[in-house]
């Protein structure tokens, strides 16, 4: 029987082939996997935003805030299970915030004579009002993913803190939305 013996030269050729394949293919595969992760995270954020808007439109209020990975009860029909917002590589959280906005007070009847216009120098009264907002928080230990999310929506609409990326969710036109 004739056998073929693996020589040292053959071993070196095999090792070189493995190294070259690893160098050329490995980073590309990792980059593709990371791009897939980013796209899934973006899709998850947009989906949660859409469902939250629908819930607000139906119930008149933002969904209840929950812990990371848990879906709000109002979205139970969409996200089933206890860890519905936990995904490979990241987890989503829905939370509610409040901001204070100042609205012009309704105009009152002038106390002067009929036909007198109010002085132009009198400023309109502003009254504070609380406006509830929603926020989508993405939790991930992958800082590259957080950076990609920040780059996608911009530092003027979202921010990164520690291992979280957060974006505020409004409802009116012109407000920052995912």
């Amino acid at each position, binding site marked *: 029987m004739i056998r073929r013996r693996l020589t040292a030269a053959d071993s070196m050729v095999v090792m070189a082939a493995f190294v070259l394949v690893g160098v050329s293919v490995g980073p590309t595969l990792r980059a593709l996997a990371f791009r897939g992760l980013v796209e899934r995270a973006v899709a998850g954020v947009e989906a949660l935003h859409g469902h939250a808007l629908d819930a607000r439109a139906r119930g008149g209020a933002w969904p209840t805030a929950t812990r990371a990975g848990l879906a709000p009860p109002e979205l139970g029909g969409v996200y089933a299970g206890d860890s519905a917002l936990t995904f490979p590589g990241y987890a989503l959280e829905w939370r509610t915030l409040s901001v204070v906005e100042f609205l012009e007070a309704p105009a009152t009847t002038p106390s002067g004579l009929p036909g007198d216009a109010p002085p132009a120098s009198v400023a309109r009264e502003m009254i504070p*009002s609380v406006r509830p907002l929603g926020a989508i928080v993405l939790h991930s230990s992958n800082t590259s993913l957080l950076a990609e999310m920040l780059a996608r929506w911009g*530092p003027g609409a979202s921010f990164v*803190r520690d291992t979280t990326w957060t974006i505020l969710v409004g409802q009116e036109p012109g407000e920052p939305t995912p």
Partner: protein
Amino acid sequence: MARKRRQSRGSKRAHAGESRTDGEAPDGGRPDAGTEAAKPAQPDGERLRAGDPRPKLSADALLALSEMRSQGFVMPGERVVELGANTSDQDRDRLIAATMAQVEMQEAIYRVPAAVRRDTGIKAGVAGTLLFVALMVGVWPPGIVVPDPPSTLTERDALTGLRVTLLLQAQQIEAFRVTEDRLPVSLEEAGAPFDGVRYLRSGNRVYQLVAYRPDGEPVIFDSAAPAPEFDALVRSWLSPWNGA
């Protein structure tokens, strides 16, 4: 006598049949020296007699072995021929002939290595160079095989995130004050507290929020006199809601 002459002619035929391994095969094709030579003589061969020429396999063995070595094949180390219980002199002669051919081939193996070693050296050199180049490419990969790096967080991003966190936390407190007309006792009372933020209340009007950068340096939001950096954030983050 007639029988002895027939045996003699048969012996010569057997010798001619074996000696074909020295040249052309009976069918005109090239013999497989590694297997043909080890086979017993042809069935029509008869006992070899003294004075009969030994099988001449050297040239053919060298040629076959050179081809086999160039293809990377290695001769087997040993060969066993089972003669069985009924061993005749003819069978033993065939075995001797096959063994002699095998020995010649083994000797031929030692006549070939000079060229083989030369080829192996060249091959090892090329393989070593290839491995060295591969390792260099592995350590310092060229740009063509390196994809675009993902985005990275800058120190500015981290600081901005910290300030926005304090600003939004302050908004929770202000919203609580609007509805309750007082400051909350704790951040939990205001609702939706951010992690890592300390709340310091001074009376019922002024408060400070403190968070720490990764290097330990504190960032403070003072409700009485927010730092100028927060004013820019208020304009960019809260303008859609406060009409600023």
